[in-house]
């Protein structure tokens, strides 16, 4: 009992994660707390049991006898087959639920995306006839956004997504805003507005990772990938390449700046080189 309480306390109160800055990050943190609590209970329990055995049953000086000849105990063994089975089952169901809330279970293959070799070609508006593949992983973030699949799941809100084309190459990320013809080395997004990244890799596999968004997606050459998320906290966060991509892999970093809505409009206006007609009003993006 004390063990369970300790485990729960550790799980709830030891903070190991960075700020949660996207819509799916708090959901992720819930899962983390559950896993951390269960893990602490099991680990402390087994560690304690082992330590107790080593001390209590250590061989004292002069002892030469054997321990009891216990070969097994069916009930006990069934019992401890059941413990991990139940824990694993519970964790599995719970993480399935979490995954679903993140939007991960939406079938990718709605009209478009599929993956692997049989990608359904789809002309995406922004990139002339590019084949875009909705990648799964991308999915987690905002359920909602699966524009392609045309499936809105979960709690999307906040209106249309801001499309951004991401090109990953050795050793940088380039961000292009088709609505404003802006090209930038940093990703600027607006708090509360979903973002839809259409990602392509030029040379080798890279990965787009923002720890504060709890979000990672490999960008594989030949497989244009869609990733959506909604930032919920203003600030600057690192974008990190998480897949070994060559000598300067460690230096392949960028920044995502989450602006308050009016700031974002200003930034967009200032950098917009396209005709002013395509005003990037937050509500009309897309």
């Amino acid at each position: 009992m004390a063990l369970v309480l300790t485990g729960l306390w550790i799980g709830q109160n030891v903070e190991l994660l960075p700020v949660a800055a996207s819509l799916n990050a708090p959901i992720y943190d819930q899962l983390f707390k559950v896993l951390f609590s269960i893990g602490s209970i099991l680990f402390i329990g087994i560690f304690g049991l082992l330590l107790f055995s080593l001390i209590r049953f250590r061989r004292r000086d002069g002892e030469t006898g054997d321990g009891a000849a216990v070969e097994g105990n069916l009930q006990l063994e069934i019992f401890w087959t059941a413990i991990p089975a139940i824990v694993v089952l519970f964790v599995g169901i719970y993480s399935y639920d979490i995954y679903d809330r993140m939007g991960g279970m939406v079938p990718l293959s709605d009209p478009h995306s599929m993956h692997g070799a049989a990608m359904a070609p789809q002309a995406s508006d922004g990139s002339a006839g590019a084949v875009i593949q909705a990648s799964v992983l991308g999915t987690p973030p905002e359920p909602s956004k699966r524009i392609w699949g045309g499936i809105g799941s979960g709690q999307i809100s906040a209106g249309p997504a801001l499309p951004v084309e991401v090109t990953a190459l050795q050793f940088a990320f380039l961000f292009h805003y088709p609505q404003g013809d802006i090209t930038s080395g940093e990703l600027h997004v607006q708090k509360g507005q979903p973002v839809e990244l259409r990602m392509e890799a030029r040379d080798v596999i890279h990965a787009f990772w923002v720890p504060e968004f709890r979000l990672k997606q490999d960008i594989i050459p030949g497989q244009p990938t869609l990733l959506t998320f909604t930032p919920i906290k203003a600030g600057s966060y690192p974008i990190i390449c998480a897949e070994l991509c060559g000598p300067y892999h460690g230096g392949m970093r960028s920044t995502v700046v989450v602006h308050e809505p009016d700031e974002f409009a200003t930034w967009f206006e200032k950098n917009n080189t396209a005709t002013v007609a395509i005003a990037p009003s937050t509500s009309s993006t897309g």
Partner: protein
Amino acid sequence: MTIAFPPQTSSSPPGLQPEGWLRYLSFSLDHKVIGLQYMVAGFFFYLVGGALAGMIRVELVSPISDFISRETYNEVLTLHGTVMIFLWIVPVVNGAFGNYLIPFYVGARDMAFPRLNAVAFWLIPPAGFLLIASYFIAGAAQSGWTAYPPLSLTTPAAGQVVWILSVLLLGGSSIFGGINFIATVLKMRRPGLKLMQLPMYCWAMLGTSILVVLSTPVLAGTLVLLSFDIIAHTGFFNPALGGNAVVYQHLFWFYSHPAVYIMVLPAFGLVSEILPVHARKPLFGYTTMVYSILGIVFLGLIVWAHHMFTSATPPWMRLFFTIATAFIAVPTGIKFFNWLATLWGGKIALNSAMLFSCAFIIHFVFGGITGVALAQVPFDIHVHDTYFVVGHFHYVVYGGTVFVIFGSIYHWFPKFTGRMLNEDLGRFHFLITFIGFNLCFAPQHWLGLNGMPRRVAEYDPQFTLMNQISSVGALLMAVSTLPFLINVFWSAFSGRVAGDNPWNALTPEWLTSSPPPVENWKGEAPLVQHPYGYGVTPGQIDLGAATGREIWSSGQ
């Protein structure tokens, strides 16, 4: 002397098999010599791999890339992974202990195919030196031990091709070994010795060898295709030529996830031999242990895609691999609870072998818990390819397997040499290894959660302190090999004489002299007895009891 030597003894032509220490440099057919050849060669490569790890940790003391060039850093991390996996852990837990112990356990005078066995060992030194030489001659591979294309197609070709060649040789060695173990365990048992009477390590090696034989050829085929892509510019895995990079990942992990079990199952087996001896109790739950090994073998083959959750795998695949992966915790959990029950109520000798084995239990439980967490897709997409994974992996293979290797050396050294290792030095070795290891790898979990990717030479300055702690741990681990080496060399020549059975153990390798003669026994092999029959005097056995003992005894 009236001992009748069995006719086999004279069958090996004199002169081709040197005597004395020269045996260890020869194409010896003796399974014990080959086992020790594996062990010493493996330990040499452990020192090489450790030096490479040291370079990595020195580079990471500061957040900028200032110790070695970035290209060299990538070569170093590639070599570190490849050397430690293919030249240290796999050859030692399988080749060294497998060759030394399995023939004793099945009651045979040698392995089923002694020449194949020697060939398997002698593939290792050239492959290892080839790999290391590539660094000095052409520059080693830079694409990590995973060698993902297209990166592996664009980095300097010579190093990558040598890497492939070397891994193919080592894979071949591993397959030869696997075939040999399967044949030995299934076909070389003494008449009447049933499978369910074998010591647990035989089951572990049987399961491991099945994994080796099923999955290693897949890696070999994949690497051959990859080498075609590099040399002949074919397009199997090159997206620019219409290939698919993700297919490589599937094929690679189809071997490389089972490889984790190839490294860890034999360790499970070794621990199952060590604990009963030093706790003076029978191994708890023999039958469930056997079935859980078989369960791990089966599940281990169908979990590979959990390494690819961020590689655009479809949702159903993620779901399937999450469930399959998490369920490995069930058979694994059974084994750990059975070991705890083996210790419970025993007369536990707190010697080095026991301490290393118990540390293995702690580390592996920790690594298993983070492993179940990593199996959950939503958790994995955050920490995949970060230091969290590095920490998890090292808890499993270093905290798990390497600790068992050390424990096993303390346990079997008296059998290998006839002399005991020094216990005080041994416990000192344990203490600094244990502290150094946890200091090195525990902070890495935090690093990963907070945003440090793996395989980087430079990192965000906020992570400096944790990385320095980790490097201090690595330094302690490096230092910890000193008392061990001193202990081994000193004890081999002037350690306390062990006698044939210093632990008073019951498994068959202790029922011959130390070190054992060629062909294992002078004269007939002794009658096999219950390998875990502690706590009872012979004759006290209740044949009516429905326990493992009854099953065991039914063959006699």
